[in-house]
């Protein structure tokens, strides 16, 4: 062991700890689980640091590890849930039939969000997004998070979550439909387009 060896995790924690924690929090929406993800990340990084060799930036490298840890945490939680009866996924619409009338038109007009990041305060938008994700069926929120926040591609999610592509497409559709409806319902009146 050379002299700097013992310092690495401490340095990572000091330089990148808050950053990693915020990212994990964005994906997991829970302080305890975000802390677990950061801890798992640093432990893995400790084990993998020989292979790292500084090719990518330190933060980029740690973030890549963190993403895997977030996937692991979500996967472990999803295993504990009873598998939803998949028959119900045979067609994509489910409860979102109600978003359309008998002729297949939108039953409630779709709002023009404009540029939500510009029209709403960032913290305000995040608060609404978070509220909506917290209130979504857990499975939908998990898959939406992996796909749209962590940015995993759908092939990887199918493998990691042991789910068929068609079921994933259906669940992502429902997640997106659920989230957009919730966002519109919670949009501050004054900001509505």
């Amino acid at each position, binding site marked *: 062991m050379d002299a700097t060896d013992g310092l690495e995790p*401490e340095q990572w*924690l000091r330089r990148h700890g808050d*950053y990693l924690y915020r990212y994990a*929090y964005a994906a997991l929406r829970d302080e305890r689980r975000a802390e677990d993800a950061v*801890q798992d990340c640093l432990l893995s990084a400790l084990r993998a640091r020989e292979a790292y060799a500084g090719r990518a930036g330190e933060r980029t490298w740690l973030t890549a590890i963190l993403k895997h840890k977030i996937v692991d945490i979500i996967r472990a939680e999803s295993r504990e849930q009873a598998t939803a009866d998949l028959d119900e996924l045979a067609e994509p*619409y489910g409860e979102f039939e109600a978003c359309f009338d008998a002729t297949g038109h*939108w039953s409630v007009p*779709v709002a023009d*969000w404009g540029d939500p990041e510009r029209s709403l305060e960032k913290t305000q938008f*995040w608060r609404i997004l978070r509220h909506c994700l917290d209130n979504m069926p857990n499975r939908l929120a998990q898959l939406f998070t992996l796909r749209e926040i962590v940015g995993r591609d759908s092939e990887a999610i199918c493998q990691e979550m042991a789910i068929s592509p068609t079921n994933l497409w259906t669940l992502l559709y429902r997640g997106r439909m659920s989230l957009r409806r919730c966002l519109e319902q919670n949009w501050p009146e004054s900001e509505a387009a």
Partner: protein
Amino acid sequence: MMLSCKETSWLLSRSREQPLTWSERLGVRVHLWLCAQCRRFRRQLDWFDRLSRRGEADLSDWVAADLALSESARERIRTAVAVRRSEPPAA
């Protein structure tokens, strides 16, 4: 046969995961040309996509700029690291 909004919404979402067939693409294109509602829906999906594309740096800042690891959380992580270091290396 013209696609409905319902079918179009499904294809728009699915197209983010898997390329549509030629005829599905054509149907969606025609529908979008005629339907402002579904164009808005598509922009909403674009916006979801950008959540991850905006990059980690942005995201971590954006959703929780004021969030930080507490001193006690740091201490727990240091302890876990110390414990791991004291273990013999895995084979």
